[in-house]
Structures are given as structure tokens and as C-alpha cells.
């Protein structure tokens, strides 16, 4: 007979915690004394992925630094829903300046901490995809190039949600936004060449670049912890579904993030000094259709005027990601795609 | 107030020369103001700088419109620039050349000014001799001191050494002294010639 080692804890590393896991293996989020860096009472939409991602990331950073974190925030949903006068939801030192300057502000904060002899206090800057890949891009690249001691986190919800769901450079092809309407022969966003910020970040050869989603907390926390153990410019790109902008059910936020990863549309990996060091392989591969069909922003691809041709082009993007990052290992490959 | 305009080409140190001149005046306890013609000229382009020297505070910020003296670092500029524009009728001119004014074709211009205040000086040669590089600034300032008497050669010596540290300063100062001596002797010749 074959003995199986007892390393399996019912939910393993998939759930937030488990009484059976050793304390070291539990997430920060499973702890009753987690910081709750962004506290209750914020005005995010029901089921907001960004609120979740921000708490995940910052609580992990707080744990990793023993509570020595200051945060810089770009303008955007996160900023607006967390700090409307007279209330703030932040429990950590937090500074908001402008939409496009969070990386530079963070540089300034880090410089001040260094000169003040408070090198143990660490800086986390955060922005949405607009503040990262569009308006804050120059400042971010500068921060990377100087290798300033900042962890920059992009909460990517693939559009300008704060202003009413307009297209950003992170909006995926075919997605409907207020500025890429689902009309005409090529409905929704164009099939451009994409602006893959994690890879652009890697091209700066900065110490650490990683992607994550709100669907895999252990992975996300591990990456924040890894990032906080390093110095210099670090970049974390977190996919955070937006029920409002994506037209998804408020309870589907995590589910959709998971499908983004499992379909291959959002590759989850980490890289050090410009080289990929690990990828999160696909566990239960799904066709992109499963991911797309839960979101009204892709509604025009299905139903009476279905556009299987466009879905196929999106599938090709996923396939390309899978090939590029080797997202399928042998174990997964043997499982059939459940179509 | 004594106002000087310096002509040169980008890279020849025409702005530095004005600065050194102002520092020399400052060293003598006078008020001085040096400034470039503000532009974006690149290496080789004609460049102008200015210096004012006075015993009172200098308040004006206008460019030097009517210089009391001009220093020309590069005689070839004559074809591009109106080098003597605004020069007061009894103004000084010091031209870096080993040729004379006739050879340069300046005779016509000379007509309207005082001949004894127009002087050529092979400053580049002095520079090559003392520095080993064709940078005629310090030598021209030495010549200027001799020609105008507006500043002492000692002050030029101090300012040059303040600007350039160590042996570079020493050698520039030596070039300035040589040019000074050259101009002094040339002026004596002129005086002799005119008194003859």
C-alpha cells in the first residue's frame, strides 16, 4: 500500500485560513488582529475588488514590516471612496496628492524617511490602472529607473471606473466602456497592441515584479511579503474585478478574478531583476467564454448577435499568454478543457 | 561706469572671460556685473558677453548698448557680426590676432575711432605657449588691462587664479602677464611713433 503524507489540509492554500493550518501557513487576512488598513465604512460599491485588494496588500505589508508602512495613493476610486471628508477609512499613514504623481510622491516620502533616519518605515504607493499605465506612467518609469525604495501596487480594474467606466490603456480588447461603445462592426475596445505594465516594469530590471489577483490570497500575500523583504523599486499588479465597470454580479468578484487567471487571460507570475522566476499555473483551465460571459461589458459577444470570431481572438490572447508564461504544467494539461 | 562687450564663439570661454573680468574688478573693491548674452548658442556660434565696472552699485539690467571697450576673441567673426556696434567714439578695442588691422581689413572701421585705443594681440599664441591650448581668454584680459588701464594686471592675476585652480591658473596667469607685457610694449611703440 502507498502511504500518503498528510500535507493536505482540506482546503490547503486555497481558502483564507483554516484551523488545521499551522499559524505560519495562515494568511494575514485570517488573523483577527490584522490591521484592516482600510476599515469599514468606506464607500466602495458592493463587492468592490479594489477595496478587497487594497486591504489584502496593505495588511500583508503591515505584517511584513511590523506595522511600519506609509501609503501613497493616486487619485481614483480607492482614494475617493476611502477618504471623503470628514471620514477616512485608513488606519495607516496615508497621503493622496494627485492622479498622475503617486510614484513620485512615494519617491519623496521614501527620500524623506531616509534622510530622517527612518529607513525602517517602508513606502507603498498604490493606484488604479489609469493612474499606473496611463497618467502616472512617466512618473512610474522614473521611479523604477531610479530604483527608489517603493513598492508600487496597481489595482487593475481595466478602466477609469471612478469617472464612470471609460477606457484606459489597460482596458482589454472588445470590452465595452463608456468611450468604447459596443456598436459597429468592431464593438467595444479595439484590439490594440496592449500595454503590459508588468513586462514594461521588468524591462526596467527592477528587483521585483509580480502579478496577482484577489482570487488567490495566499499568493498575493506571499508576493507582498517577498516584495517587502527587498529594497528598491518593486511592482505588484493586482487584478481587481469591478462589478460596476465590468457589469458583473457583486458576489462574483473573486470568482471572475479566478476565471481570469484560469483562462490564461491574466497570467500570474513573479519576476526578479527582469527575469520570470515563477508562474502560478492554471489549475482548472476554462475557455475564455466562461470568463467573458459573466460580464455585461462583453455582453455583445454573446446572445442573438453573438460574435464567436471575436471570442476566438480573445481566446488566442489567452493561448498566447499560456504559451509565453508556460501556464500549463503537465498535470493540468491532462485535464480536459471543460467547454 | 565702464562697460565692456566681449565677442567670441561658443566654447571659447567668452562668458568666463567676462566673469573673470568682473571678479578682477571686485578684487579691487569695485562694483562689477558680468552677464552673457542670454541665448542658446551652441559650440562655434558667435557669442557675446558683457561686463560693467563701476565705483557705485550697478543697478541697471539692460544689455550693454554702448560699450567703452570691446574684446574680440576671434577676428573671423567680423564677417558675421557687427563687432563695433555701439562702441563709444573714444572706445577701446582689443582683437585677438597675430596680424594687423590692415591685414584684417579693418582700416575702414578704424577711421571713426581712436587709433591708439585699437590694438591687436596674438593672445592665442600666448595661450599656446603657456597653456598648450588655444584658449586666449586670460591673455586677452591681460592685454585689456594694459590697453585700458581700467584694471590692474595684479587683479587679473588674482581673478584668473581664483577661477582656475593650481597650475592651470598659474599658466593662464602667465599668458595674461605675457599679453600684458606685449600690449604695454606695443603701446609704448605707438606712443613713440606718434610722438615721432
Amino acid at each position, binding site marked *: 500500500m502507498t502511504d500518503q503524507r498528510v500535507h493536505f489540509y482540506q482546503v490547503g492554500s486555497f481558502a483564507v485560513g483554516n484551523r488545521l493550518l499551522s499559524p505560519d501557513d495562515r494568511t494575514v487576512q485570517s488573523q483577527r488582529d490584522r490591521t484592516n488598513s482600510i476599515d469599514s465604512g468606506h464607500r466602495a460599491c458592493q463587492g468592490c475588488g479594489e477595496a478587497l485588494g487594497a486591504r489584502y496588500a496593505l495588511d500583508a505589508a503591515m505584517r511584513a514590516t511590523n506595522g511600519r508602512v506609509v501609503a501613497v495613493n493616486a487619485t481614483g476610486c480607492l*482614494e475617493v471612496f476611502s477618504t471623503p471628508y470628514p471620514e477616512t477609512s485608513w488606519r495607516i499613514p496615508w497621503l493622496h496628492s494627485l492622479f498622475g504623481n503617486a510614484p513620485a510622491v512615494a519617491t519623496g516620502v521614501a527620500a*524623506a524617511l531616509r534622510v530622517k533616519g527612518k529607513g525602517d518605515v517602508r513606502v507603498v504607493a498604490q493606484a488604479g490602472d489609469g493612474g499606473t499605465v496611463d497618467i502616472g506612467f512617466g512618473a512610474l518609469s522614473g521611479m523604477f529607473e531610479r530604483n527608489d525604495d517603493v513598492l508600487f501596487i496597481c489595482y487593475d480594474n481595466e478602466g477609469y471606473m471612478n469617472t464612470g467606466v471609460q477606457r484606459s490603456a489597460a482596458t482589454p480588447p472588445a470590452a465595452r466602456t463608456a468611450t468604447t461603445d459596443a456598436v459597429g462592426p468592431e464593438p467595444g475596445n479595439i484590439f490594440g497592441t496592449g500595454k503590459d505594465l508588468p513586462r514594461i516594469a521588468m524591462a526596467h530590471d527592477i528587483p521585483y515584479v509580480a502579478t496577482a489577483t484577489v482570487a488567490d490570497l495566499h499568493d498575493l500575500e506571499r508576493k507582498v511579503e517577498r516584495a517587502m523583504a527587498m529594497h528598491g523599486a518593486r511592482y505588484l499588479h493586482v487584478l481587481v474585478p469591478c462589478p460596476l465597470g465590468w457589469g458583473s454580479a457583486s458576489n462574483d468578484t473573486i470568482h471572475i478574478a479566478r476565471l481570469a487567471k484560469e483562462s490564461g487571460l491574466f497570467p500570474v507570475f513573479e519576476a526578479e531583476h527582469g527575469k520570470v522566476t515563477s508562474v502560478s499555473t492554471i489549475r482548472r483551465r476554462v475557455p475564455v467564454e466562461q470568463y467573458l460571459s459573466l460580464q455585461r461589458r462583453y455582453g455583445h459577444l454573446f446572445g442573438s448577435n453573438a460574435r464567436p470570431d471575436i471570442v476566438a481572438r480573445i481566446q488566442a490572447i489567452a493561448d498566447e499568454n499560456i504559451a509565453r508564461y508556460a501556464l500549463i504544467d503537465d498535470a493540468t494539461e491532462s485535464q480536459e478543457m471543460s467547454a | 561706469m565702464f562697460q565692456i562687450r566681449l565677442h567670441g564663439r561658443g566654447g571659447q570661454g567668452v562668458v568666463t572671460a567676462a566673469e573673470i573680468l568682473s571678479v578682477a*574688478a571686485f578684487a579691487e573693491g569695485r562694483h562689477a556685473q558680468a552677464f552673457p548674452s542670454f541665448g542658446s548658442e551652441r559650440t562655434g556660434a558667435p557669442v557675446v558677453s558683457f561686463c560693467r565696472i563701476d565705483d557705485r552699485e550697478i543697478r541697471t539690467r539692460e544689455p550693454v548698448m554702448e560699450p567703452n571697450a570691446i574684446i574680440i576673441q576671434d577676428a573671423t567673426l567680423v564677417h558675421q557680426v557687427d563687432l563695433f556696434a555701439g562702441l563709444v567714439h573714444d572706445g577701446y578695442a582689443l582683437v585677438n590676432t597675430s596680424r594687423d588691422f590692415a591685414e584684417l581689413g579693418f582700416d575702414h572701421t578704424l577711421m571713426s575711432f581712436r587709433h591708439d585705443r585699437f590694438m591687436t594681440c596674438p593672445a592665442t599664441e600666448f595661450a599656446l605657449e603657456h597653456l598648450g591650448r588655444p584658449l586666449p581668454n586670460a591673455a586677452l584680459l591681460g592685454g585689456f588691462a594694459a590697453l585700458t588701464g581700467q584694471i590692474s594686471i595684479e587683479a587679473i592675476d588674482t581673478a584668473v587664479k581664483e577661477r582656475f585652480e593650481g597650475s592651470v591658473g598659474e599658466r593662464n596667469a602667465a599668458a595674461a602677464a605675457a599679453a600684458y607685457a606685449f600690449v604695454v610694449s606695443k603701446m609704448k611703440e605707438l606712443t613713440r611713433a606718434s610722438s615721432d
Partner: protein
Amino acid sequence: MLRQIEGSRAIAETVALCRPEVVCAYPISPQTHIIEAVGAMVKSGVLTSCEFINVESEFAAMSVAIGASATGARSYTATASQGLLFMVEAVFNASGLGLPIVMTLANRAIGAPINIWNDHSDAMAVRDAGWIQLFAETNQEAADLHVQAFKLAEELSVPVMVCVDGFILTHAVEGVDILDQASVDSFLPPYEPRQVLDVDEPVSIGAMVGPEAFEEVRYLAYLRQRDALERIPEIARTFNDLTGRDSGGLIRTYRTDDAEIVVVALGSVLGTIKDAVDIRRDLGERIGVVGITTFRPFPSEAVRSALANARQVVVLEKAFSTGFGGVLSTDVAMSLRDMDFDLRTVVAGLGGRAITRRSIEEMLEKAQHDDLESLTFLDLDQGAVERERERMRTVRRSGPSAENLLRDRTADLSKAVRRGA
């Protein structure tokens, strides 16, 4: 110690004496010499406990300063012209957040057409940005104003912009008395921030404020600028006690006591104006000068009392509001609003056009004869303007004016050369 020194260098050395902790730099003429010199001092170890950060834009420069200031570091940067406009969002933000950043503005024109030379368009473009704006008349004052600026900024938690005429001052070499470290330290205490990012006392800085409190926030900023009007002369007096120098303050008057005509101006042009006034005075004309050192907050009371006895006020400005006229003039007029006076605006020195003493004298002569139009552009080439207007009238696609004017001018010059030959 009194030294013959370039203006930029004097500013840089004085800023270094103020012990800045974070300095961010992005090059733009004519500010570069300042930032280069500070950088060299940090790199060589002359200026310690200072982070010098080469950023990728002026927007980043001001943003880094914002982050640093909010973290309790004394922060400094410098810019000019297009650079100021590129950072302008952050300029407003710094004052909105009440961060006592000090910035040197090496005044320069704003394009297009691109122009690197001096005027005051840049400073005027951000006069409503919530910063205190001080204008230096000489390089001595430029240096001194920086020491005062840090003190003022930090006392009031308001950023201060020290405006220094680009090239005319920044690149001029003249005598400047540079303070010693002990004097600066005695004058300028260490920075005690009013708010700071501190892990032991966390706060959220930069909240979104809605209609329910925004007006109050703005009114408080207004009150702080009013406070500055009190503090600026006091600080200048303290500075005078320390140095014996008359730097800073709200305004500076020159021969105004019996003046019928008073010229009001900002910055370095005041020296040339004073020379011209002296000459006219020698001719028996009763002319004086008022220099505005503190442009924001605008010292209305001081201006009003300085001009109380003038018959005619000539505001000479290096900037103008295109669709209207004088900018400074408006502020002066508002200050004198219920008084009986004639106000003339003279726009001069745009884009580095030299303001000569002779032109000023001519202007004063006209003023003396009440010949000055209410809005005059000094030394304007009326012929060139008329030719271009004619061209625009007759040719639909008449091309870019700047290039047309230059072409006309080159043609004129070569004609002149031919004539001369």
C-alpha cells in the same frame, strides 16, 4: 562673505545653508545652474543630510517635494516657464495640502513660440495657485529671500515661490554677500511640520472635500495668506537685524515721497528703472518707484499708502493677460479703487526683449506729458506687426506669425547690411 558670484550659485549656496533635506531636480533653462550647484554640493558632501533626486519631469519634481514635505522633510526645487506649467497641477496641490515647499522660479517666457528668455508670464500663470510669490530685485535679494522663504513657509505651512529673473539675474555675476551657517541656523529653526506621515500617529492627508467644507478650506488658505502679510515684514525686519540688509518685505519704495508719477514693477527691471528715474529727477521731474517684493499675497494696503500721493501710476509689467492687459496693473488698480489717479500699463521685456534705460526714459517722458496710452507695449515693432496683420487679412493660409516675423526681420537685416556695404 561678500563674493563676486553668479546669481544661480549664490542661490544654490544659500539654499544649502538652509539645510534642505530633499531637493529634486529637473533641468530647464535658466534654472539649471541652481540645481546643478546644489547637486554638486550634495554629491561632494558639502551639503549633508540631503537627498538630491534627479526626476523625470517637473511634475515629478514637485510631486517628490510634496511626498517629502508631507513626511516632514524640508523640501526644495527650482523650475521655470514650461517646467512650471508642466508641474502646475502639483503646484496647486502643494499649497492645497499646506506643504511648506520652497521653489525658485527662474522667470522665463512661455511658448509657443518657444522662448527661453526672461519675462514674468510663468509666475503670473500660477499667481492663483495658493503659493506665496516673492520677487527678487538683485541677486543679493534673491539669495536672502530663500532664507526668509523657508522660515515663512514653515511658520505658515504655505509653499513659497522665490521669483528670480531668468538669465538677467540667474546668469549675472555680481557681488553677493553669502551668509554663514551659524547666522542661517539662528534665523531658521528646524522644520516642525504641522502634519506628517508618521507610523506612530497615522493620519490620512489629502482627503476629498465636498461642497460642505471646501469653501472653508479655501477661506482658511486666504486667512493664512493674510497672516503672511503680517509675517513677511516681521521676518524681513528680523533678517535685517541679522544682516543689516534690506531684503524682502512687502514692497520697496524709491524716491516716492514727493512723486507725482510712480512706476510700479517687479524684479530686476527695478534697477534700470531707478537709473532712469534718477536721470529724470535730475531734469526736475517728480518720479518715484514702487517695487513689489511680495506679489502673493498682494500687499494692497502697502501699495495703497505708497501710491497715495501719486497723480499717475505707471505699472511696468513683464507679462500680460492676452485678452485684457496688465496683470499686476489689475491688482494695483484694485488696491487703489476708490482713489483718484491715472493708471497706465506698460508691457515690456516679453521673451527677453531688452528693457533699456533709454526706452524707460522715453516712457517716463511721455508719462510726464500725459502721453502714455493706458496700455503700451514698450519698443514694439509696429511695422512688423502691421505687415503681419496685412498678410493675415489678404492670405487665408498666411502661415505661422512667429516665423513670418522672423523672416521679415531677416530680410530687413540683410537689406541693411547691403546698404551698409
